[in-house]
């Protein structure tokens, strides 16, 4: 039995110049926030930008960007939903807030299906918002999108750094390109530089702790005006 979807992934991504996965070892460290701000920053620079929410069981990019859910347009596949200049694909477009309790093969199949049917078209940048950790979807991204580059989010927390170290070790072992570490919720000196040095990785810079993000959630224009967005724009590896 042949799975036809595997044969078409490269074709679907052929028009995408660059794919950047925003990852990190732990939950709640700001991966989705950074992924959304990165996508907005890229779109604002005139880059054709897509955002693929790969946190299948807890998608939030539509919430951060304030994108309405609803079935995407379909013609010879499905089209990402354009919102604030960014083409979004997310399971939330189909299921809204209905829970999607997925595990194992179901996670992989959902990723494969979306990779096989989504027409990203010509893009300068496709941002992948990864779920926390090194589970199914992290492995699927490595397997199905091997050319993807990794932007690794960390925070000043020692606990977070330990999980990010594991992520970096695996990426290094697999020879996956690491764009660099981004320290989110920066508050002062931290161990990020030392961690980057351990892996010969670059520190892209930091995004400060910014309490204005909460009120700006769901409003792309307000997000663009936050100090976090400004800090990210200054260091975004675009």
């Amino acid at each position: 039995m042949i799975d036809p979807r595997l044969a078409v992934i490269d074709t679907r991504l052929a028009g995408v110049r660059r794919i950047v996965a925003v990852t990190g070892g732990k939950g709640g460290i700001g991966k989705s926030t950074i992924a959304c701000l990165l996508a907005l920053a890229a779109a604002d620079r005139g880059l054709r930008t897509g955002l693929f929410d790969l946190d299948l069981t807890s998608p939030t990019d539509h919430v951060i960007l304030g994108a309405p859910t609803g079935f995407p347009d379909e013609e010879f596949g499905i089209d990402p939903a354009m919102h604030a200049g960014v083409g979004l694909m997310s399971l939330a477009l189909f299921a809204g807030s209905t829970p999607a309790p997925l595990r194992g093969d179901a996670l992989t199949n959902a990723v494969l299906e979306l990779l096989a049917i989504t027409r990203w078209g010509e893009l300068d940048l496709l941002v992948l918002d990864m779920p926390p950790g090194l589970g199914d979807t992290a492995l699927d991204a490595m397997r199905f999108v091997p050319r993807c580059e990794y932007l690794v989010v960390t925070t000043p927390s020692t606990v977070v750094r330990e999980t990010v170290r594991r992520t970096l070790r695996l990426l290094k072992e697999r020879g996956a390109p690491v764009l660099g570490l981004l320290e989110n919720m920066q508050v002062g000196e931290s161990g990020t530089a030392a961690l980057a040095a351990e892996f010969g990785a670059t520190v892209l810079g930091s995004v400060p702790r910014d309490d204005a993000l909460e009120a700006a959630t769901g409003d792309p224009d307000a997000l663009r005006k936050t100090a976090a967005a400004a800090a990210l724009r200054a260091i975004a590896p675009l």
Partner: protein
Amino acid sequence: MHEYALADAVIAAVRKTAADERLARVLRVEVRVGALQSIDEHTFARALDTVRPPDDARFAAVEFALSLVPVRCRCRPCGAEYGPEVGAEADAHGAEAIHFVPELAHSYLRCPRCQSPDFDILEGRGVTIGRIEGERDE
């Protein structure tokens, strides 16, 4: 019609096999369509015909043999095996969501015995390819 994207995937996979096996002509391709995805067989046959590469002589005489595979699920907590009827058990929105991404069965369908969303889809999920028959030149 997002079916075209899946039909396109079938063609891409068959082309790859034809190249790997050095087939000069592909004669028959078994395409199994899982009932979970509620893809209409005729629609899919038409989609395959539409996306078939007209300039690729290997495909001039290909026949796509479509068959519909019934859905079989097994509940993890209680072990029940069952065959859900998407049309009858999910509302219209849920059925359409499952049509796009079959894994959303876990959002809109439940085990008939214990109501769990934690089941494995054993069969009848989506589009797969069975036998590919063709011939080589001498």
